[in-house]
């Protein structure tokens, strides 16, 4: 019992020391580093607006700060401003840094984040690294790379991208959904192929919904199958997808739901609203 007490006392002491260390780390992250990031955001925003340049940052901390600042700016920019920020990311070496993380980091999370960041930056310089990332051992990295390539519009590895989506969508559903949406616009034929002959039910479903979102009528058979489901979560999403596709088939299927008294009342109500919009 004495030994147990000594071990427990040691554990408590170790935990207290670790808690203090963690507190200091969080203090740095939310305090000083955030101030630096805010300054970097201002510098980048000024450069984007004034068509100016930003000095390449020196040192690991400054590079990290610039990277965080740029990634906060990308989602709120569009069009030419976004392109200018991408050029700045290239000229400051940020893209190069992120590519190096994707290629060399032993930690899966770092590679996932890097692939995600490259997708956000949308620099053509990243295409070869993203293509190589399709063979990563981590499925989330692979899907994030597919998304990056799809957003870039680089379809040279289309076959492999579809294989990844078919095999790994379940591990990264939101990323896969977004990649498929990009493919539904850029290469609809390939997505139809995945939707019809994919091996995973989940990937086929996502492909059908992506096609429906862009109004592709070829998604209708799958979406109608989903509409027949008793699971109201699936059928409700199907009604919305049918509404997006529109056309005569959509009207007929929505009318069918509306007339079917055995269906969920809210689904019929949703179908009625969708019908008004489709007509």
């Amino acid at each position, binding site marked *: 019992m004495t030994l147990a007490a000594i071990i427990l006392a040691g554990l408590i002491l170790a935990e207290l020391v670790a808690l203090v260390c963690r507190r200091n780390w969080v203090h740095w992250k939310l305090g000083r580093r955030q101030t630096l990031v805010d300054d970097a955001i201002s510098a980048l925003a000024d450069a984007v607006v004034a068509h100016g340049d930003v000095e390449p940052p020196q040192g690991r901390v400054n590079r990290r700060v610039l990277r965080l600042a740029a990634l906060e700016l990308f989602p709120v920019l569009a069009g030419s401003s976004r392109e200018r920020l991408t050029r700045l990311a290239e000229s400051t070496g940020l893209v190069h840094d992120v590519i190096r993380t994707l290629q060399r980091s032993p930690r899966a999370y770092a590679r996932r984040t890097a692939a995600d960041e490259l997708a956000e930056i949308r620099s053509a310089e990243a295409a070869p690294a993203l293509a190589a990332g399709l063979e990563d051992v981590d499925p989330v990295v692979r899907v994030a790379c597919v998304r990056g390539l799809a957003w870039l519009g680089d379809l040279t590895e289309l076959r492999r991208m579809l294989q990844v989506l078919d095999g790994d969508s379940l591990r990264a559903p939101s990323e896969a959904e977004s990649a498929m949406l990009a493919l539904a616009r850029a290469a609809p034929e390939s997505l139809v192929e995945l939707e019809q002959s994919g091996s995973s039910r989940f990937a086929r479903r996502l492909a059908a919904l992506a096609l429906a979102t862009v109004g592709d009528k070829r998604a209708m058979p799958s979406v109608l199958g989903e509409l027949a489901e008793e699971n109201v979560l699936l059928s*409700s999403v199907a009604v919305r997808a049918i509404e997006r596709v529109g056309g005569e088939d959509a009207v007929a299927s929505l009318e069918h739901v509306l007339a079917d008294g055995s269906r969920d009342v809210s689904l019929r109500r949703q179908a009625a609203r969708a019908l008004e919009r489709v007509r």
Partner: protein
Amino acid sequence: MTELYYTLVAILAVYFFIYVAVTFVMVIVAGLVTRRRRHELLPSTLREIMRAELAPTISVCIPAYNEAAVVVDSIRSLLSLDYPRVEVVVANDGSTDTTLDVLRTEFGLEPSNRSPLGELPHQPVRGVYEPRAPISLVVVDKDNGGRADALNAAITYANGPLVLVMDADEVVSNDTLALAVRPFLADPFRTVAVGATLGLANGCRIVRGRIIETGRPRQILPLFQAVEYDRSFRVARIASSTVHAMAIVSGGFGLLRRDVVIEAGGYDVDSIGEDFDLTLRMHRFLRDRDVPYRIGQVPDALCWTLVPENSRVLHRQRRRWHRGLWQVLSKERGMLFRPRYGIIGFAAVPWAFLYELLNPVIVVVATLTIILGIVVGIIGWQLLLLIAFIAWACTVVPTLGAFLMTDSPGGTKTGWRNLGAVLAAMSAEMGYQWLTMAYRLETMLVPRRRVAWGDMERSVPPEL
């Protein structure tokens, strides 16, 4: 006699050893799961969900009884969350204050002909109202029937395939809905319910239904409860969700598939522990029909709730919880050790029975056993100190481990108050746990005494 004493000691030792061992395992599992989840969530994932064109509608169901002070801000805050499709359904549960009038005035409500979607038991509905403006809000005015009754009414008038049950005085973070809906997007075929992490609103600055600043509570009782909530939501629920043994989706924040809730019969209006009751009933309903399903916990989704700040309200709350636990376990005792109910019948329900319901009684027996040992000279003061230290350390190690391995809501920015939480964790065993134990024991000894919901008293009025 001595033999009998040692047999009792052995039984108690096994009981507590199992508790400590399972707690340690749960902390490790929760730590690993939290780490993995943190690493799975990519920065752009939430943005994708927040702008998904086919995202399912979430109907937020709020029971409101005399909530005139907070209900409008709560609704506005919910309608402005970062999620593409939110509908708010408020069930005015026969409020005697101006709740309905305030809603009518603020949102320009008009009578609506919206019909109920299913049949769940609830008190008669006096009227249904919707705003003139295109705001996704429905107000169901009904006779008073209690929280479960009001939630049933709200669910039957909800339009979305997913219903979120929560209270009017709770606050959610901007990204909570996007985070909570992820399991439904990732596995729409099986996911039927998810819970979120409840943090304490007592230490936070809330303005017009929005969290402005998070932090640990300043008062001592809420600080102890913060530690308790951390252990429950950051450890126990995550671990039980990982092994598909989640016996309760908290009524404080539960995202549920509406069709399954309605088919399972909705909330039991006579139940005191209605959230525990519904979760177990959903397990029973789906397992009886051999339907594959998932009930889980989303640790990153945060909801902030008020907890009692004085012992009178805490007493009332704990009596209600323990009575509810007793009532539900008595009702669902048929699930115990039945192979059909799998890990729920073999682990979750027995655990709730042995380590939650009967725990106060067993602690009293253990204390009496130690006193008897001292009286007859079997236990000396050195051994007594050693036992006391081991008992204390066995609860402190996993609690500190939980602080260390999981993210603590609201605790990261305020260092000193975090230190307070650590001290509270280390001293809880010396007073607070005994206090709540006494409340629970009293519930078992005086079972006929009435338990009431009562109001949650606020030391600081909501900022407007």
